[in-house]
């Protein structure tokens, strides 16, 4: 993926985020991710049925990296089983931390594969996956 394409994907998901906007529905589990080291403040909602992620929503105020990465994450995990999602999270974290990972699995999220060059933006790219992990943990 060339640099311009990566940036275009991020901008597209930042300006037109998918699954943005929370729902008033108790069947969703909710978590707030208020980054300690920066000003990102996002809420995530996940609906889990029979070990499958049925739906994911997010909303809040945050930078272009964490907003776009939230949008991409929601599409990436929807319809997947918890096991599959855990595998996606692990691979995504490996990518961010410059370890070997499965490119195929991460689709558009590959656009963050060089975020390590901006170390203080890594936490922004990781924020949605941290939120998702928290919800999966609480679901156990």
């Amino acid at each position, binding site marked *: 993926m060339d640099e311009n394409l*990566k940036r275009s994907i991020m*901008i597209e998901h930042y300006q037109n985020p998918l699954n943005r906007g929370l729902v008033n529905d108790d069947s969703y589990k909710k978590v707030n991710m208020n980054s300690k080291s920066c*000003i990102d403040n996002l809420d995530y909602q996940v609906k889990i049925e029979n070990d499958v992620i049925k739906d994911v929503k997010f909303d809040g105020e*945050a930078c*272009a*990296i964490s907003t776009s990465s939230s949008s991409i994450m929601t599409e990436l995990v929807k319809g997947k089983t918890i096991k599959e999602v855990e595998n996606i999270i692990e691979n995504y974290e490996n990518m961010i931390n410059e370890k070997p990972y499965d490119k195929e699995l991460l689709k558009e999220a590959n656009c963050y594969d060089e975020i390590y060059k*901006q170390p203080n*933006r890594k936490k922004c790219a990781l924020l949605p996956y941290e939120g998702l992990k928290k919800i999966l943990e609480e679901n156990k």
Partner: protein
Amino acid sequence: MSFKEDFPMLKSDIIYFDNCATTLKPNSVIDEISNYYKNYSANAHRGDYDISRVVDEKLLEVREKVGRFINSKSADEIVFTSGTTESLNLVIKGFFEDYLKANDEILTTKAEHASLILPLFEIAKKTNAKVKYIDLKDDLTLTMENVVKSVNKNTKVIALSHITNVIGDVRPIKEICKYAHEHGIIVLIDGAQSVPHEKVDVNDMDIDFLTFSAHKMLGPTGVGVLYGKEKYLSKVKPLILGGGMNAFFDSLMNVEYKDLPEKLEAGTQNLSGILGFGKALDYINEIGIDNIHKKEVELKKYMVDKMSKLKNIIIYNKDIENGIITFNVDGVFAQDVAAYLNKKKICVRVGNHCAKILSEVLGVKNTCRASLYFYNTKEEIDKFIEALDNDNILYESL
């Protein structure tokens, strides 16, 4: 004087515009700290041998220097702490907690730093005193008129920063103290953003308590000051007990504390830091605090004039005379602006700047803040302007 020669950090290619958070350190400060560790690394108050006596003498010298810097009546009114935060906690919990009764009122504003607001909240809960906010004007500044309007017979304390750290407005402290004292009110001033940048004269302004930090004025981290008028400072209860602050104790729990200021300085102090702070004051005195202020105002004017010519830049504190410029780039989240500037090696701060309740008044939650000090240059500002003169800031921040 060559700032580039004196400040090692200025030799890097970084443009440092976050001087409200902390300032860079000159060689004289850095050298003094290592001088302590290399040549007279002894504890204070152990006058039995020469190098300890040297430490005591130097400690007193810095205490007197601090006293002269803010024009206190005596060096005994200067207490060393770990920083403004500890100083504020010490005076609020060690004095106001006992001083206030139920329904007494503490006046402050919504523009204050967490280090002032949070201890106030805690003692208000404990004493059932009330925290009240003086109205700010639309431009977020504080007028004497609004102070007067907020005072009533229950007002016992006014606690404010001299200069706020978000928009940098200068409060009329002398007038506030005069009015407060006529009404039996004690005034606590957080000078963290003022003492490093303009003349603060506790005697002339008649301030009761003043707090500030060394690291925001060329000194090392971990050193701060609590100034208090002797009549009030002597009533501050030590929050930390131990060595260095007691005069006597026995097994029957009879305890006697030392006099001021040692009474409030339990344990081994940050000696190397305090001595380094002395050199920081020397450096500031050599330039002259009034010249420092003048230079900051000049730099800000230069910066604001150039920023105003750019499209899409919103400045929140154009007309306030000091080195703080609070701004946003229209349509770009503050964090992304800072990430973009970071790529250009320009350091600015984003966020709510520890004044979380100000967003209730400001209307925007997050801003970028560039804060200048005397060693910043017009060349650096030109590079900053060149970076901001770009329609693709969001794109290039990624």
